[in-house]
């Protein structure tokens, strides 16, 4: 199989078990969302894939080749994260140059376009940049390197709404120019919901949801009506969450079959990804933190 394969990976830091048993596959030329509540190990997983951390057990491979300590494989993967490896007294243009040297190429065209769009001062020193400007600098690196798998860990940190919008646009433009895989770990779910092919939700050390966005959303429904009517209608459905207001019950249900016909006294509507995510990750057993 082609792509990144994560098989039964576990990782603990001292006594703290972060990932228990994570298995998932990341295919070429697709856009993924990596979701999960704070502290569930999204960053850990991305760092493991990119060899910045070593798993306690399990295997990570790319196109069938073990990714561990494998420079050839790692050259095809780029991780943009919160970490800053660049010395503060260097200039942005130096960061671009060194990134190009380290990762076997730097698309000057892409970089120049983004520098212009975001209004980056390439002569500025790294230490003088604001959080948002540092993020933009790192995003330019992530999109300009020739990697086939671009992992973005909270890529919009410190960016205002206009810059975030511009960034999503850049991703889609870059995808159009040279299709590659993007894995976006973010808590701004609604902003990327319509952009992603596939959704991973990490929780309790395992992959809780591993589904294509479209079928995931198309089989989730919100049902509203009287308690009796909704209960009758949802008897055979997986109810993720319910909320009552007087005699009115609202339910979020998953795995709703395509031919599901609700009685006329129950109103059915679709669910957005953010709402579904909260319903999915808000289930019992979340109190341990």
């Amino acid at each position, binding site marked *: 199989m082609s792509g990144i394969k994560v098989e039964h990976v576990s990782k603990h830091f001292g006594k703290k078990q972060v990932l228990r048993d994570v298995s998932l596959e990341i295919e070429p030329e*697709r*856009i993924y969302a990596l979701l999960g509540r704070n502290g569930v190990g999204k960053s850990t997983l991305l760092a493991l894939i990119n060899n910045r951390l070593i798993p306690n057990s399990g295997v990570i491979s790319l196109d069938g080749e073990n990714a561990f300590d494998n420079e050839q494989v790692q050259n095809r993967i780029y991780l943009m994260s919160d970490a800053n490896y660049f010395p503060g007294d260097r200039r942005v243009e130096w960061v671009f140059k060194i990134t190009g040297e380290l990762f076997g190429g730097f698309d000057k065209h892409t970089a120049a376009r983004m520098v212009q769009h975001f209004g980056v001062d390439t002569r500025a020193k790294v230490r003088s940049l604001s959080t948002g400007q540092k993020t933009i600098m790192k995003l330019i690196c992530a999109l300009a390197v020739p990697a086939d798998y671009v992992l973005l860990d909270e890529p919009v940190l410190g960016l205002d709404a206009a810059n975030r*919008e511009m960034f*999503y*646009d850049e991703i*889609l*433009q870059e*995808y*159009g*120019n040279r*299709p590659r895989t993007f894995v976006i770990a973010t808590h701004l779910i*609604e902003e990327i*919901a*319509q*952009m*992603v*092919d596939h959704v991973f939700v990490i929780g309790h050390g395992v992959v809780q949801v591993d589904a294509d*966005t*479209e079928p995931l*959303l*198309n089989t989730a*429904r*919100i049902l509203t009506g009287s308690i009796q009517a909704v209960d009758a209608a949802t008897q055979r459905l997986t109810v993720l969450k319910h909320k009552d207001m007087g005699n009115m019950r609202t339910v979020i249900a998953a795995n709703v079959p395509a031919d599901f016909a609700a009685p006329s006294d129950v109103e*059915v*509507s*679709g*669910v*957005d*990804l953010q*709402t579904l995510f909260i319903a999915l990750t808000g289930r019992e057993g979340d109190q341990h933190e």
Partner: protein
Amino acid sequence: MVKFDADSIVPLYQQVADELTRAISAGVYRAGDQVPSTTEISREYQLNPATVLKGMNILVGNGLLEKRRGLGMFVTTGAPAQLHRELKQEFFAKQLPELVRAAQELGISRQELIDALMNQEQS
């Protein structure tokens, strides 16, 4: 095109297909015109490129769009006429019976309906 509705029951790719169909039917894109590329549409509405492609492929399947290798997607010669035919069929198959049913439920007689229709035409 309008904004795509994330929590609609209609899948996003279908919404893309519907919007493109509407645009052709409204004459925004005429026979032989090139429609925006997958990337253009995906950027404009920040939609997943595969979703956009799936939507466009519905129109290719319907014979409304055709792929020209290396160039992009174009509105077929017969598309406007075909859409017009389909909309007309839909009017008689769906909208008209709905209207008649609504009239019946209100106790409006067939004759009253016909009279109203005639007056409508004159105005």
